[in-house]
């Protein structure tokens, strides 16, 4: 990165608003130091300018530094603000940008610093009883975080129905607190910390090649997307450009990941609506897609494909060309039959509505946001190779309900098949660039099947990670789930809404 004035736009307007900062501008990311005294004004300015708060995290060390990652989607740029925090409190950012609340809680758990104003902060990742010896990135907070609970007194005929964390076979650990009068959902809250594995803590001191192994296990169903984001962050930090064949391979793997995830979501929708034969039909398609992954890249869930600097494996192009039409045809036939089944469609329509305003306010991403009329897709808004040359078709709907989310997924699945064909035709795949010695910091991103996955990494002079921030899309979208569940839904709608969000607890608790 070099120090210079950013090109005209939101980043330049921020500099004129807060004054005096020396930005560091890369090709796609501009980093602006913001003093703590001006942080509130900066957030006000960026929120008013329509910037999308994509992430908020702290870096460890002798001094806590807050970093806010803003998506300037119309300008095809990310803006990162850096603010050293000397005091135990910083300005209450979620009062200005509500999308910041979950991260404020997470920073309090990990670093012990909190937003001013005394707002209660929830437990989101660390388990109860996490004492001073519990592995964390910074210091233990002086007071334990609040347990999440319904923000009202349950009275009258309503009661709280606890569900989880152990649920039916094959479903992740997640505790629901459902407040219901027996039918209608009055309120809902989640405990997501059961799957916390301290992954960001474990990444410290690792070399990038070692870190990739853990990164793809952050959220196994987004192994390609999250490891791509981390690899891109490392490559940005070290100034490495992967070979073009490697970028084609990453695109192929990412679209395969999108395909099988959307098929899995469709199967889960059938299960949640009690349509057993439809579920079997979708799972046949899912199994064929997973076997296609194994035939193409040697792993059903596409683990071990990416490497920092490139890829570890090239696709078996013949196997992919041979198997993709049949596997997708299976998915399409199941989808067409489902869309023609009125009893299925009736359960999806007007269920779990997320409004456009909610999606924007909470910073939702991926199919959940696009189904609510928010046209964001990192492959188009923040395009990197190969998507700059091979752009996807934007799938967007306005209704914001479960049906809109299913339609977005089906549109995207069809487009993924087209993209895979284009990427296969684009040239030889594979290759890895050697990582140079040295350190630095960088931001990386990829559009997973759930939406924007982000990673930020800082490397010391020896090339070891001093701080890695992994932000899967699930971290963003769970915060929209309770709003969707409360939107005039009944008890039995909850599994349907959860299937349509198709998020992971592992990704958010990491």
């Amino acid at each position, binding site marked *: 990165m070099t120090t210079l004035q950013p090109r005209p736009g939101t980043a330049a307007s921020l500099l004129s608003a807060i004054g005096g900062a020396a930005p560091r501008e890369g090709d796609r990311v501009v980093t602006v130091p913001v003093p703590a005294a001006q942080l509130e004004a900066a957030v006000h300015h960026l929120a008013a300018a329509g910037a999308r708060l994509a992430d908020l995290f702290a870096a460890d060390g002798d001094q806590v530094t807050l970093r806010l990652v803003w998506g300037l989607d119309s300008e095809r740029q990310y803006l990162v603000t850096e603010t050293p925090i000397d005091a135990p409190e910083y300005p209450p950012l979620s009062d200005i940008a509500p999308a910041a609340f979950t991260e404020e809680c997470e920073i309090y758990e990990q670093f012990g610093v909190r937003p001013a104003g005394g707002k209660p902060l929830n437990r989101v990742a660390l388990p109860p009883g996490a004492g001073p010896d519990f592995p964390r990135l910074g210091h233990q907070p002086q007071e334990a975080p609040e347990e999440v609970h319904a923000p009202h007194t349950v009275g009258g005929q309503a009661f709280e129905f606890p569900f989880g964390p152990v649920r039916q076979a094959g479903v992740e650990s997640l505790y629901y607190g459902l407040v219901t009068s027996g039918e209608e959902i009055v309120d809902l809250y989640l405990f997501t910390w059961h799957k916390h594995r301290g992954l960001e803590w474990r990444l410290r001191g690792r070399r990038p090649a*070692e870190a990739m*192994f*853990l990164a793809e296990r952050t959220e196994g169903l987004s192994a390609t997307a999250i490891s791509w984001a981390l690899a891109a962050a490392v490559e940005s930090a070290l100034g490495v450009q992967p070979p073009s064949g490697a970028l084609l391979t990453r695109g192929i793997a990412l679209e395969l990941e999108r395909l099988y995830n959307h098929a899995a979501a469709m199967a889960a929708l059938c299960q949640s609506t009690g*349509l057993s*034969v*439809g579920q*079997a*039909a979708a799972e*046949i398609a899912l199994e064929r897609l997973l*076997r296609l992954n*194994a*035939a193409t890249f*040697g*792993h*059903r869930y596409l*683990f*071990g494909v990416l490497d920092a600097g490139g890829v570890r494996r090239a696709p078996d192009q013949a196997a992919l060309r041979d198997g993709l039409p049949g596997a997708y045809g299976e998915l399409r036939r199941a989808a067409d*039959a489902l869309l023609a*089944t009125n*009893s299925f469609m009736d359960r999806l329509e007007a269920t779990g509505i997320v409004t456009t305003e909610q999606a924007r306010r909470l910073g939702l991403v991926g199919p959940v946001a696009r189904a609510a009329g928010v046209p964001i897709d990192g492959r188009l808004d923040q395009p990197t190779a190969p998507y700059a040359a091979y752009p996807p078709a934007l799938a967007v709907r306005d209704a914001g309900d479960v049906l809109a989310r299913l339609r977005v997924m089906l549109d995207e699945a069809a487009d993924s098949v087209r993209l895979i064909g284009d990427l296969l035709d684009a040239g030889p795949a594979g290759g890895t660039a050697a990582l140079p010695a040295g350190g630095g910091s960088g931001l990386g991103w990829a559009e997973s099947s759930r939406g924007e996955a982000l990673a930020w990494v800082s490397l010391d002079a020896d090339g070891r990670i001093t701080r890695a921030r992994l932000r899967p899309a699930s971290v963003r979208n769970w915060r929209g789930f309770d709003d969707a569940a409360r939107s005039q839904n009944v008890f039995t709608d909850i599994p349907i809404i959860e299937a349509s969000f198709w998020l992971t607890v592992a990704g958010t608790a990491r």
Partner: protein
Amino acid sequence: MPLWFARGLRRGIVTTRYPARPDSSAAGLPTPPAFRAGMLDHRLADLLVTVCPSRALYRDGDVLQFDVGRCTACGRCQEAAPGAVAPSGEFELAGTSRAAFVKQIPLAPEVGR
């Protein structure tokens, strides 16, 4: 619903007879490594210990210990020493004790490479 019933019947049975008969798709699955003991010396064993991301390998004197229960079949050891390590082809792991998953691989004197 009757249409779905008919559709299910028409699609027929797609599951295989596994485990009564082998499943052909298993051939494409990644499997834990098999080590050729005569090809492994201390130096190569230490290299394999270094590249294993899940710490399934550790050296105890003249023996390389391989904990199959910790192996994720990532293939990094096979890439590091293709002559000494190959896929085992075994993906069914079962045992009556934890110790049954730890294999002892005796190391040879220095192997010329």
